[in-house]
């Protein structure tokens, strides 16, 4: 599915990632680690925004290491962002166009001459479905500036989901959410995984990770220090030392 082998990348003299190697397959997977461990950098390598100095990224048996982000999206990887990245000038519903239209690749002339009514119907149906799944329908006509933070997070998830990806990268999906919103988000992520879509999430909230992730990779200073189930990870001495501390989070 997704396989990273010996990924290394430096920014000037700073080694952000060193020989990162792991694979993920079905279900929900988590990437954890203290701040500055290299988690978002790794997401940017997987999604094509950063090119590694060394190593390979293989997705569905294809080498995507040096592919451009738009190519990687078309191969089935979509993502959310650590800082919300919704388009403020349009409504939340219209934000979902970005996720779905690029997958459908409408013809320019048909689009301009309004000859793709069927495509619009298909897009609108997809939008309704994905908004129902993520419980955001009632906010759809607001612009991002006017909606609550938790709703915006769900819209980002909806936008990542609407292209029917094989893998969604979630960058700190629970950050800034209250307990009720986290619970709701957890249920949505579980549903998405149940649809056969693989999830790799970066998350700091260990209770959120433990309730969802079947496989966890822990990074520290750009290196993989442990991987396994959450139970295995929480017992790993290096992880306890680097990140979790002596008690449960």
């Amino acid at each position, binding site marked *: 599915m997704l396989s990273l082998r010996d990924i290394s990348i430096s920014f000037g003299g700073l080694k952000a990632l060193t020989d990162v190697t792991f694979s993920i397959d079905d279900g929900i997977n988590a990437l954890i680690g203290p701040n500055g461990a290299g988690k978002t950098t790794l997401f940017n390598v997987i999604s094509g925004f950063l090119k590694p100095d060394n190593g390979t990224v293989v997705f569905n048996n294809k080498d995507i290491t040096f592919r451009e982000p*738009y190519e990687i*999206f*078309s191969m089935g990887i*979509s993502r959310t*962002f650590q800082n919300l990245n919704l*388009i403020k000038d349009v409504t939340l519903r219209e934000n979902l166009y*970005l996720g779905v*239209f*690029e997958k459908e690749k409408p013809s320019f002339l048909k689009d301009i001459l309004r000859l793709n*009514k069927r495509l619009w119907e298909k897009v609108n149906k997809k939008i309704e479905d994905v908004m129902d799944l993520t419980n955001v329908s009632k906010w759809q006509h607001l612009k991002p500036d006017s909606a609550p933070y938790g709703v915006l997070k769900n819209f980002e998830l909806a936008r990542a989901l609407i292209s029917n990806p094989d893998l969604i990268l979630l960058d700190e999906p629970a950050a800034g959410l209250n307990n009720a919103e986290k619970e709701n988000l957890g249920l949505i992520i579980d549903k998405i995984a149940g649809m056969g879509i693989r999830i790799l999430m970066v998350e700091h909230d260990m209770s959120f990770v433990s309730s969802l992730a079947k496989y966890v990779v822990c990074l520290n200073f750009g290196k993989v220090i442990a991987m396994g189930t959450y139970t295995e990870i929480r017992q790993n001495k290096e992880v306890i030392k680097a990140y979790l501390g002596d008690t449960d989070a």
Partner: protein
Amino acid sequence: MKKLNLFYLSFLAIVIVLFYIFVDNQFYKSILIYIMINAINASMLNILFGYTGVISLGQAAFYGIGAYTTGILTVHFGCNPLLTILIGILIASFVAFLVGYPTLKLHGHYLAMATLGFGMILYIFFNEFSNYTGGPSGLVGIPKLSLFGFGLDNEDKFYVFISIYFFIFSILLELFDKSYMSYKLKFIKESEFASKSFGVNVSRVKLIVFVLVAAVTSLTGSIFAFYSGFISPVSFNLKYSIDIFIMATVGGLGSIVGGTLGATMLTAFPELITNFEDYEMIIYGTLLLIIIMFFPQGIAGIFKKFWGRYVKS
């Protein structure tokens, strides 16, 4: 799919027709012709900057390429006028590709400087290549355009021609505004990062838009050359690039009517205040300042607010 704004298109058509029927004064007709030419140029810049976020201070150069291609090929080589328009479009598109390919990787001030530099180079070229361009004195004797044996040899005929061109242009613009493509450009403008993440080949789209805008601007330049019969580098200098930039900004960036509103106001306004010639620049400058400071979405934004508050409620 959004509904087309048929009210706006009908309003445009009525104004154009009424003006033709009731205004005999050739001077006013020539002002309206210039308004339509500027509206097309400002609207194209609006697509480039207002929608896509690509700032260009070199649009006058593409306008000049169209005008000079037509001028040189008709005056010196006696080419078919329609062919010269086509050649102008091809040259402008090719030059836009050459300029856009490296420079569109830049953003903000850097891109503005690069396009400004390109505009300056073309301006110097129009001045110095005087064997063909006529240099600073300009190029005279450009024949009037003739379409299918119908010569556009007076103000009235040209008014009809430019009105048809402008109206077709406005319909296409409205279709564009209600298409997914207009969303795509807005997505690129606000977040290239998000756009790339969701499958948009940002560099390619920006380059295509840059080339298309240059092509239409060149076409308008050719038409301008046929209309005026005389062209000189002054019509294609930095001031004109800035003029259409201001028209798009004052009219309303990112709004499809912005270019037309801005061009109407800023082309007609100097003519309307000629009686106050001594204070012209002060009045003009104050007005611009007020709009930019208090109405950042331009005149289109004011109309939109009014429409939302009083008409829809």
